[in-house]
């Protein structure tokens, strides 16, 4: 059964049809209604059975109306129940004394002996012959007794406590044979669609009903629309990967071709030197970059290109002063875990320069690695999103225009740009967007025009400009899905419930 039926099914099982019909007959016979407690007493069933029947009838619609009432009610205590069944202690003492009497010591051995003896004595039902030979002996003084205590208790037990006077009831209460309790009961009256016969309600439509068409005559139990449905049995995509899919989609919509970024291990040459990032640059420090001990070095470079890179760093050229330092191949050979996917962009642009130039638009979204201090928003690895356009005569205005189009697809239209520094782009711009929630400008990405010292040694034509931008995948995902600790999103400490519950990803809404 579905959750919608669960409530009525369980109630239905509490009262069988017989009880329901009997109850309806009782209600029919009176004009002003019946009390559920009185019905239970008169039928000799537990009150809960009648309560169940009331609820079942209510679930059928407006057959009856039931009003909850509470009333004071006298009930037998455990001792009172025992007395109602077996008689009062004094009556039991009386009845166990034979004609020839009973030794007092024998009587006292009985469980009710002590209390019963004193009560029977004060009622003058028995006497003690203290001088009897063989010890004190007890004899009846009357032929028969009237056990009023028991009779009163029996009246209460049968629900006729009204026949007792208040004084009598309080006396029994004092003896701890009666107690007063509050009872909740229903006052049951006829409903608008009252009837003494019940049509059995169906829980669900069945194939048989459809085949025979008898669903037309059936009554169906109402569903409980307040309940939740049953969760479907399904798998889930990871939220970060859902966002990645959307970014991929945006780039594809904008005509960008995906770069092969499946190479986490990169040489310092392609990661730094080819990008005109000097060998003493802090990013190339042990503190910032993961170096490899095995395989420690890259062993193959395009030799003539490497010479041109060496020259532009150490001596300049292509209109540049260079950095004027002693460029070392040993530094360039050092293998690292790439610190940005721009290393792949460099490889792609070098490859492009080896052919007859045609304009390109490239993108990638993949992992990069930083040996940095970790906190709630920073991990040693994250996903970098990167876009690159290479064409003749691109301007800074073009870069801003492309960024505007890209961010518009993310639902971000208010952008502004701040001058920044980056070793391989000039000009460099930080991209800020206005955050409506925080009421301030927040940084959403980095961008720039690749330096001639990077492009010209590759062999790209002098009038070709390459514009590029980058951002992290994790940050927009955390904002999108309201995640504060990055470890709940990425890595094995992920909260799977969050993965199960995460909605589809539409970046522009």
């Amino acid at each position: 059964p579905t959750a919608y039926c669960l409530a009525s099914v369980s109630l239905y099982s509490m009262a069988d049809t017989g009880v329901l019909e009997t109850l309806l007959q009782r209600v029919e016979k009176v004009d002003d209604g019946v009390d559920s407690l009185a019905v239970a007493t008169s039928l000799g069933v537990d009150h809960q059975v009648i309560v169940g029947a009331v609820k079942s009838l209510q679930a059928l619609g407006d057959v009856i109306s039931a009003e909850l009432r509470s009333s004071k009610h006298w009930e037998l205590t455990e001792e009172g129940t025992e007395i109602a069944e077996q008689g009062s202690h004094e009556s039991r003492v009386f009845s166990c004394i034979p004609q020839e009497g009973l030794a007092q010591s024998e009587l006292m051995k009985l469980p009710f002996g002590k209390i019963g003896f004193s009560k029977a004595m004060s009622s003058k039902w028995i006497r003690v012959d203290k001088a009897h030979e063989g010890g004190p002996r007890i004899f009846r003084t009357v032929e028969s007794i009237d056990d009023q205590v028991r009779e009163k208790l029996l009246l209460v037990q049968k629900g006729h406590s009204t026949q007792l006077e208040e004084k009598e009831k309080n006396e029994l209460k004092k003896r701890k044979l009666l107690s007063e309790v509050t009872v909740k009961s229903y006052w049951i009256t006829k409903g608008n669609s009252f009837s003494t016969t019940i049509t059995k309600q169906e829980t669900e439509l069945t194939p048989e009903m459809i085949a025979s068409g008898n669903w037309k005559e059936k009554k169906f139990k109402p569903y409980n629309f307040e309940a939740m449905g049953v969760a479907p049995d399904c798998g889930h995509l990871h939220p970060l990967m859902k966002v990645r899919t959307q970014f991929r989609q945006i780039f594809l919509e904008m005509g960008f071709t995906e770069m092969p970024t499946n190479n986490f291990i990169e040489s310092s040459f392609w990661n730094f030197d080819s990008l005109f990032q000097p060998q003493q640059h802090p990013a190339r420090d042990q503190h910032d970059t993961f170096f490899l001990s095995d395989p420690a070095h890259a062993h193959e470079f395009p030799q003539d290109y490497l010479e041109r890179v060496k020259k532009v760093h150490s001596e300049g050229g292509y209109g540049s002063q260079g950095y004027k330092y002693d460029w070392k191949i040993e530094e360039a050979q050092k293998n690292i875990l790439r610190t940005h996917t721009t290393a792949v962009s460099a490889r792609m642009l070098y490859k492009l320069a080896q052919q007859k130039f045609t304009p390109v638009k490239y993108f990638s979204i993949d992992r990069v690695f930083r040996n940095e201090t970790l906190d709630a928003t920073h991990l040693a690895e994250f996903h970098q999103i990167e876009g690159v356009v290479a064409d003749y005569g691109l301007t800074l205005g073009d870069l801003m225009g492309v960024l505007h189009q890209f961010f518009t697809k993310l639902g971000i239209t208010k952008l502004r740009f701040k001058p920044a520094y980056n070793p391989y782009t000039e000009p460099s711009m930080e991209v800020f967007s206005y955050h409506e929630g925080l009421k301030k400008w927040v940084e959403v990405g980095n961008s720039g025009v690749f330096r001639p010292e990077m492009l010209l040694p590759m062999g790209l034509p002098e009038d070709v400009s390459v514009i590029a931008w980058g951002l992290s995948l994790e940050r927009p995902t955390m904002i999108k899905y309201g995640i504060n600790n990055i470890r709940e999103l990425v890595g094995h400490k992920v909260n799977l419930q969050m993965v199960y519950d995460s909605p589809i990803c539409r970046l522009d809404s």
Partner: protein
Amino acid sequence: MPTVGVKRDLLFKALGRSYTDEEFDELCFEFGLELDEITSEKEIISREQGDTKASGASDVILYKIDVPANRYDLLCLEGLVRGLQVFKNKLEVPRYKRVSPLSGEPQKLIITKETEAVRPHAVAAVLRNITFTQERYDSFIELQEKLHQNICRKRSLVAIGTHDLDTISGPFTYTAKRPGDISFKPLNQTKEYTATQLMSLYKTDSHLRHYLHIIEDKPLYPVIYDSNGVVLSMPPIINGDHSKISLKTKNVFIECTATDQTKAKTVLDMMVTMFSEYCAQPFTYELAYRKEKLSGKFINQKVGINESTEKIAHLLTRMCLLSQATGAGDEIEVEIPPTRSDIIHACDIMEDAAIAYGFNNITRTTPRTYTVANQFPLNKLTELLRQDLAAAGFTEALNFALCSQEDIAEKLGKKISEMRAVHISNPKTAEFQVARTTLLPGLLKTIAANRKMPLPLKLFEISDVVLKDETKDVGARNSRRFCAVYYNKSPGFEVIHGLLDRTMQLLEVKPARGEGYHIQTADDSTFFPGRCADIFVRGKNVGRLGVLHPDVINRFELTMPCSALEMDIEPFL
């Protein structure tokens, strides 16, 4: 990005006006700076050391300003103010000139060849008739520290020493000696020490101990003497006490020793240009000004604007690059001052023109670049498979590419030497010892971290592992893997096997030996004996599946049986 702390009121006094925090933030943004924080000494101490330590500290407002990493000329109040005032047309571009001493004889610093093996370069200059105040003096010391931490790469590339010239006499000698042969009274000490003693003395100095490694292992240590044999400094560690500067110092001798001559010159230029402002004849210090010629068209085309040659020259001048139209067509002559070591190419000049124009005043245009998009085939396959694996009831996990050796070896019942793993030489913790060679440990750790979730747990991941590969230029390559695990009260091999069947159906491979796929019993210490099989596709082994070995389950802190599948997906391209 270096951060410079300046006193707000001092800054506004120098700028000749005050700003609201918002106004100053805007100005910074436009110029490429960032007003990072508004604080006070008291607030900083209270944050770092608690309120009690902070009582009595100054509550003068400080602006913490982030400066681009290549703009060494903005690392002190003097430079910041000069840059902003010129930018706002309130100050002419200063012109730095060298003057000769009254005696006519310039000071000399003689470099001996012994320095070659340890720290071969040195440059020096003198600031004459300078007037220090407490604030100027503090800024002077602070600039040295900023330069040391940034361009000087913690003194390894360049170290700066400043001396009261009136306490010493030239010519000076920069040489290198055995540590035992160097002896002097270092700055702020009361007695003489040999260099050897100093190195052990400073082992515990919270500041200086970071620089000892630069010369520690060298047979000879660098040292500078005056003509009377007074030690000026033992670079890059410490100066001598004898020549220390004070508020009363009138003539400052500045030396920069270095392993990189270009940077030494840049640093010396910075020290001198920044503080020559306080000399009797301001900015008197002659330096190599460089002249560059470029066309207005170049700037207009690269930035995407259309301004007259004169306007562009004016824009550049506002960035402290004194420029003028030469009259020959649209030619502009630009003078690069010694303060702007960051200008090494015409594109750097172009950027300054764009900044002065205002990035946000540039019209945003759409390039007409026509291209057809292509997906990277491996990523396309990955994207398509992920969708259908989720549809098959498995949930996607996303684990780190880096992990411990233990994760990919011992815990899986393997030896690290047998894995073709790449090893990281400088991991800060064990979590970053190697790149993963298998996706399985990550998925098992994901389960361990989610044991409270209802069973069964069905997880998958499609991602890259890294393997050593001699045929690649870097000696390693990525391999795209598909891994899935099923974790429940029973091993569920049939579930994982069924997932393999479904995957093959998706990849259009039929169950058959030869041209199709089949599985075949295999031995693997990660799996329970007899419950492991190799996956063969068109005769090639592409992966493995099976019921995990109980020892593996225990080592990953799991308690239930588990079956797993891992295979290479690149053969399906």
